[in-house]
């Protein structure tokens, strides 16, 4: 009997340990499963939303590219830029096709405009603009050619022997043609529509004069020349008429086109913002669901665990009950032998014990008190379960902190996107910010490659007097033209021309030593001085706009930044200005 109770105790202790371990494991697995599911689900959901946001942003980048390229194309008229705009449009259309339509639906159903429709309209406008541009350019070159031919015709006409009586007619003819030419040139520069009619009237006067010459010419050769001239004049008049028409259409198309690009960009920005809000909502939803699921599992787990433990202790409960009956003198019941394990043996033993009840009654009583002790121990195991639940709460609150952190990151990305504008609105050149970025990048690149980097600081001479004399609008126009010349002259792929501020420009030229940079600076100075932009308030170059240029170049050394190059160029510019302006000054090449 003694041996049997010892085995019972050993068995019970093993079961209790296994029960505790099973419970612990079940609980751990449930929480792990819940959290894995939640993490996986949130990853999938946030990933899908985030991918849409990412596509939206790629789309927006292409729309911005179209806008920038168009602004550049307006200045350069380079087909490369037109082609780049086309490419960006195709790319934008591809990205657009990958964005689900619901993204564009405004939840309030009010202000939202249909971006695909806007984009289609924009694409058509862009194509029309490029079409008008092509016509305007082609007709412009045709106009230059026919004008040159007309001049040659005038020369041939004047080479004929004319009687003196026709001199006034000839003079009228030449004057009308020259005046018409002037009107045409003025139109090209200013696009004043009134000039179209004015030049046409002049050309009609010229044709009249030519007809008169033809009628009154004494010799057939002169009559033929006069006729040939009328044909050329008609050619010029027609070509110019069409040129002016397409130029006008192109110009009329320009502003709406740029507005449409901005409109698309705005709408995409709004859609992206909505998408960001959706992502935050989704994350919050996921967190809440995760918390609820964890709670549910904890409750279920403890319920199941209790059942399980109860299942384990049921034979013992039966034993207790039977022993109670025994104690009350009920000797008829016997335990069923279910399996040949410890319980089976115990049952057999119990049954045997019942047979010899009288002798064993004290021992049974002590077994009953031991069972009560074990029951108290189970209570304390339940207490441990409750403590583990509070650990889960700690885990969830760290997840929440991560969500907040991600939201802040998304907001930072959004801010960065809006700050990415790189163009100076007035001149279409790169702006100061873009210049700073490019200078830092090129500096780092030159440092790695051990190649020289040059910086040109350019200043428009006597710009304040210019503004005072001609007004700020003319001042802006002057800066635009200077910018155009700088851009056209420093056009190598690695060169960046930027507006530094006010009337100051900078040129970053990669892989360029001091002497090459000096040549570039001189080329810029000569280009602008030679452009003949009138500046009556300047004593230089016969009253034309001129530049002072400070040049610095260096092979970057580790441990120093691009600021030194900037200082050197600035100091050189100061020297150029104090040295009389309209000149180039160099910073000493200290690193060579």
């Amino acid at each position, binding site marked *: 009997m003694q041996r049997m109770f010892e085995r019972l105790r050993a068995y019970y202790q093993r079961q209790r340990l296994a029960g505790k371990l099973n419970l612990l*494991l079940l609980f751990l697995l449930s929480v792990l499963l819940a959290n894995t599911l939640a993490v996986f689900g949130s990853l999938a959901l946030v990933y899908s939303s985030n991918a849409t946001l990412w596509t939206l942003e790629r789309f927006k980048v292409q729309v911005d590219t179209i806008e920038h390229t168009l602004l550049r194309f307006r200045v350069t008229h380079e087909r490369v830029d037109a082609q780049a705009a086309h490419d960006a449009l195709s790319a934008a259309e591809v990205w657009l096709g990958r964005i689900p339509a619901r993204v564009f639906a405004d939840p309030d159903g009010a202000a939202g405009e249909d971006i695909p429709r806007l984009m289609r309209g924009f694409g058509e406008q862009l194509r029309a603009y490029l079409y008008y541009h092509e016509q305007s350019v082609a007709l412009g070159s045709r106009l230059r050619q026919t004008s040159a031919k007309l001049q040659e015709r005038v020369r041939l006409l004047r080479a004929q022997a004319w009687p003196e009586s026709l001199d006034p007619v000839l003079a009228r003819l030449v004057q009308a043609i020259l005046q018409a030419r002037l009107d045409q040139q003025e139109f090209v520069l200013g696009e004043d529509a009134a000039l179209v009619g004015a030049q046409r009237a002049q050309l009609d006067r010229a044709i009249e004069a030519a007809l008169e010459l033809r009628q009154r010419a004494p010799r057939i050769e002169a009559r033929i020349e006069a006729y040939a001239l009328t044909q050329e004049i008609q050619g010029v008049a027609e070509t110019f008429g069409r040129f002016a028409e397409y130029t006008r259409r192109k110009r009329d198309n320009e502003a709406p086109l740029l507005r449409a690009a901005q409109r698309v960009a705005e709408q995409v920005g709004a859609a992206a913002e909505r998408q960001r809000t959706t992502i935050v909502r989704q994350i919050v939803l996921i967190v809440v669901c995760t918390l609820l699921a964890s709670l549910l599992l904890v409750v279920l787990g403890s319920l199941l665990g209790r059942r399980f433990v109860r299942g384990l202790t049921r034979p013992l409960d039966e034993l207790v009950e039977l022993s109670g009956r025994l104690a009350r003198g009920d000797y008829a019941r016997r335990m069923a032998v279910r399996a040949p394990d410890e319980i089976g043996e115990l049952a057999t033993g119990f049954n045997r014990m019942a047979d010899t009840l009288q002798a064993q009654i004290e021992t049974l009583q002590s077994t009953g008190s031991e069972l009560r002790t074990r029951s108290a121990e189970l209570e304390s195991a339940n207490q441990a379960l409750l403590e583990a639940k509070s650990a889960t709460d700690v885990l969830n609150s760290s997840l929440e902190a991560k969500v907040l952190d991600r939201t802040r990151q998304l907001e930072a990305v959004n801010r960065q996107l809006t700050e990415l504008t790189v163009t100076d609105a007035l001149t279409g050149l790169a702006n100061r910010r873009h210049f700073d970025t490019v200078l830092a990048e090129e500096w780092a690149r030159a440092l790695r490659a051990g190649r020289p980097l040059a910086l040109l600081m350019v200043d428009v001479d006597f710009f304040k007097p210019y503004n005072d004399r001609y007004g700020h609008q003319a001042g802006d126009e002057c800066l635009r033209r200077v910018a155009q010349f700088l851009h056209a002259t420093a056009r190598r792929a690695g060169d960046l021309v930027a507006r530094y501020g006010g009337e100051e420009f900078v040129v970053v030229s990669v892989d360029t030593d001091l002497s090459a940079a000096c040549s570039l600076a001189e080329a810029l100075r000569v280009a602008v001085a030679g452009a003949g932009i009138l500046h009556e308030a300047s004593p230089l170059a016969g009253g034309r706009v001129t530049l002072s240029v400070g040049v610095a170049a260096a092979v970057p050394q580790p441990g120093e930044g691009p600021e030194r190059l900037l200082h050197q160029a600035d100091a050189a510019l100061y020297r150029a200005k104090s040295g009389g302006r309209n000149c180039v000054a160099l910073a000493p090449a200290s690193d060579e």
Partner: protein
Amino acid sequence: MLGRAWRRLGWCVCLVLALWGSAGCERSAEENRPAARNVSLLHYFSFSGAFAGAMDRLAEGFNREGAGQVLSALPVDHEAFKTSILEDLRLGNTADLYSYWAGARVRAIVDQLAPLDATLPLGELSRSFAPSVIQSAALYDGHVYLLPLTQHYVGFFYNKKVFAAHGVTPPRTWDEFLQAVATLRRKGIVPVALGAKAKWPAQFWFDYLLLRSAPLDYRERLVRGQAAFTDPEVRHVFSLWRDLVRAGAFNARPNDLEFDRGAAAMVYRGEAAMTLMGTWLIGYYSGPEYVWLEGEDYGFFPFPVLDPQLPRVALGPIDGLVMPRAAKNEAGARRVLRYFASAPVQEELSRATGALAPSLAVPERAYSPLKQAIRADILNSAAWAFNFDLAAPPAIAEVGLNLFAQFLEFPDQYAHLLEQAEARVRTPAAP
């Protein structure tokens, strides 16, 4: 038991990492995918009526084939095109492809064009284009520089009702032609409408009169500057032409009349009986302004025979595509060239322009009866010649076009005009 749980946990972590990783790969692959590249094509074709969108449709067809290239074809004003392409080439600011006139114009800019042999190998080209077309239009200095797109034939378009009403039939010989002119003039109809405002329409008269009265070899020498405008051959042509003017064959003031809205419209309205023009008029007549039926409302006959001893020469321009050396998207341009060399595209262009397709892969049944007759006429001709302003180098062409225009205004002064033209050919800078 614990070991198994850890293994499971490990699997879960691996699965999550793998999914995250694959998502990342998908992103970077998308980011690096090159967007479709634009191929720009500038052309001077104008299509009307049902064919107004022909080029856009062809571009769409190309874009549907995809391959990451998007063709945008822009039409440019026909006359302006002649100077703008030269300026584009000079500035190096070119489109990827241009339409251009085969012959002396291509020869004048061949240094700035990219050879196309790699894309359109001669062997392959010879299988789908006639040798005469390849020789005269595609090959320059032994290399392929132009893909022929359309072959236009110049001849007489006539109003069938007017001819029938006055008992005139299409003349085969010069005498028959002069009789027809006299008959029509008597009835108060303008026999021949000539709209020479753009200058080039007048040249077909000079071309055909010369080709029908002098050997082809002489004309080739003339356009090369090796024969003189004061030669008896040329004087003879101008005397024939002057006689026609005197006989009242043409409308008044041809230099003020446009070839399409002027001369062709006169024929359409029955004010004139015929006009000498290229087959692009077919596209024009089938446009919405007219909807004139070929073979029913109007007919076509080749320029009559003057000297029966001379082999017959057919005249007209061949237009094609050229690629500048400075093309920005060469790979795309080459794809477009291959597309435009295919038979379906050539057939579509033929339908839209009124021209014949230079590609022999376009079957005869693809053509209307009138075009089939034109095709037969070309095949029966001994040789093919380009019109004067495409056969002569640009400087001589310019002198010629001015000569023809001035002749129409001062027909009796042709001897003087020829001397002047000859002098200007020798001093090329003058207009």
